[in-house]
């Protein structure tokens, strides 16, 4: 995965993020939360990579590292074949126009003291040399693009519903025409009918603006709907990554299988056999040895305790980290 690839927009290699845990009498570091632990992946231009996983599995941390809102503990991040791992805040500012993020909570992610116009114009103000009038025009066009009206500019976030706010967030993120957008669970907080609106909007904008998405969610059906490829994370690691058809039709990793079978589906005629996992997600500060999933895995064997499975390609573009497929 190291070759320079013109099609690849984002590439991360072996990145890790360890958050120190302070404790003890003198508040020194007594351990680490291994929020992301050795993840490598690449995202092609124009594609949507979905990331799913349980809460705390490190999805947000991964996303935030990719656009360098967080500095990785280890590893490399390439954007457009440029190494941005160690760029200073100053230099990063130039890259910020190309990568954006939309957050989960439509209530917390907009500064409630700024009007919608100000919110959408703020990135333009920072990243472009557009005049005031141009910014205004751009803001209006963005608002219309996400299905709001021009005169909503003067309003404030509290005057909008969750779905509408998420549209504002999207307009704000897209105003400076980024190439790459991370959606960190952008629809999780929305009602289904609204969720559909936002998902459609995101899909449409991707087509229109030729965007590349990293779409984080815990809802497998949503991820399936929007993604081209899907990565399944478990305890800071990628358990399986593959094109979506491969993941959904032929999941290899026992965790992916369990996850898929747990999702309740609306097809009432189709009775599936459920794999109910035992226990909870272990703590990322003290992950199990060997394979992180082994404590809940119905198929765990001795080797899983010792060896940490590598993420290896099993089929065309279908990578999985499981000892079951080692042979």
């Amino acid at each position, binding site marked *: 995965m190291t070759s320079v690839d013109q099609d690849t927009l984002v590439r991360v290699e072996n990145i890790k993020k360890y958050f120190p845990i302070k404790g003890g009498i003198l508040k020194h570091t007594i351990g680490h939360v291994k929020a992301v632990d050795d993840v490598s992946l690449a995202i092609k231009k124009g594609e949507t990579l979905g990331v799913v996983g*349980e809460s705390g599995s490190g999805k947000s941390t991964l996303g935030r590292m990719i656009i360098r809102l967080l500095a990785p503990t280890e590893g490399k991040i390439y954007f457009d074949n440029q190494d941005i791992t160690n760029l200073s805040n100053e230099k990063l500012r130039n890259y910020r126009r190309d990568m954006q993020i939309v957050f989960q909570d439509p209530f917390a992610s907009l500064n409630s003291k700024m009007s919608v116009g100000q919110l959408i114009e703020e990135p333009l103000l920072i990243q472009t040399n557009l005049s005031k009038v141009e910014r205004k025009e751009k803001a209006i066009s963005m608002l219309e693009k996400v299905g709001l009206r021009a005169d909503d500019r003067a309003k404030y976030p509290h005057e909008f519903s969750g779905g509408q706010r998420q549209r504002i967030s999207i307009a704000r993120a897209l105003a400076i025409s980024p190439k790459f957008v991370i959606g960190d669970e952008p629809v999780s907080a929305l009602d289904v009918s609204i969720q559909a609106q936002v998902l459609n909007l995101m899909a449409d904008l991707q087509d229109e603006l030729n965007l590349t998405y990293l779409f984080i969610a815990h809802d497998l059906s949503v991820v399936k*709907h929007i993604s081209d490829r899907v990565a399944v994370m478990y305890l800071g690691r990628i358990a399986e990554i593959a094109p979506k058809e491969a993941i*959904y039709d032929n999941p290899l990793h026992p965790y992916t299988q369990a996850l898929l079978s747990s999702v309740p589906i609306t097809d009432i005629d189709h009775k599936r056999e459920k794999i109910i996992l035992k226990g909870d997600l272990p703590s990322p500060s003290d992950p199990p040895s060997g394979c992180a999933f082994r404590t809940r895995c119905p198929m765990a064997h001795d080797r899983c305790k010792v060896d940490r499975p590598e993420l290896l390609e099993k089929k065309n573009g279908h990578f999985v980290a499981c000892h079951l497929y080692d042979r």
Partner: protein
Amino acid sequence: MTNPAVLSVEDLKTYFYLENSNIAKAVDRVNFSIHPGETVALVGESGSGKSITSLSIMQLIDKPGKIVNGSIQLEGRELVQLSNRKMTKIRGKEVGMIFQEPMTALNPVYTIGNQIIEVLRKHKKISKKDARKQAIELLKTVGFPRAEATMKEYPHQLSGGMRQRVMIAIAISCEPKLLIADEPTTALDVTIQAQILDLINEMKKKFNMAVLLITHDLGVVAEYADRVLVMYGGQIVEQGTKRQLFKSAKHPYTNGLLESLPSLDQSSDRLGTIKGTVPAADNFPEGCRFSTRCPHVMEKCIKTNPDILSDDSGHGVRCFLYEEEEK
């Protein structure tokens, strides 16, 4: 279903008298009943009145809310207007309840044991020792292998799924006739959701309870419910068996919901959407509550609110389209 209903709700109206002298008609003319051993799902988007319905049943509506009309009968006993003292003998004993937020639903300053023993002693009038024994049994039943140790733990020491199990243990401790589960898994991961819902199902069978399962996830409905009530704007807009709902939904809202759902089994490029947002409870349209978002809206929909009409099979719908049809 020949045996008499455990719960029957008739013409329930619960209004909130807001400070600006508006009235939020959170629950408006709601009728339904639940039979022993049956799981009835109450679905609807956020703010549609699901929780208020359940709290009305528990007589836990606080100011400025008030049950203004209707009757709620638990095994033939009228609950509306029952004194609070008499109600305390019903809550927890004959009706158990589980809430959405496992993180905050348990009192943080008391041990798990304390909180279970409390309810046992209140309703069963047994000694502390016996209550302790039963509590440990209960914890084992809901899947705590180390029940003794768990008794001594505090809520913050447990994960969300474990807390929800404790909530279930509390809710079923007195073998209630009715279990109300208000979005019991919304805050949990899918794998944990599956555990919890299975547990509820198991308990339902074990104690032959009636379950009112409140959710906004149609997948959950499809997998766990027997009958479904679809709520919108404080009213039930459609009700029927699970099959009727998923196979032959009538109400435009139900249809919209189903279409807007991304699905695991079929791929679709675009999701169906329902335009607009849910109106606020103190600002419902005059006529049909859904009229502002309905693709089939007619003139009379704007002026008058249709009644719910059921066919022989019990499939009811609140829509003029079908009134027409029947005529």
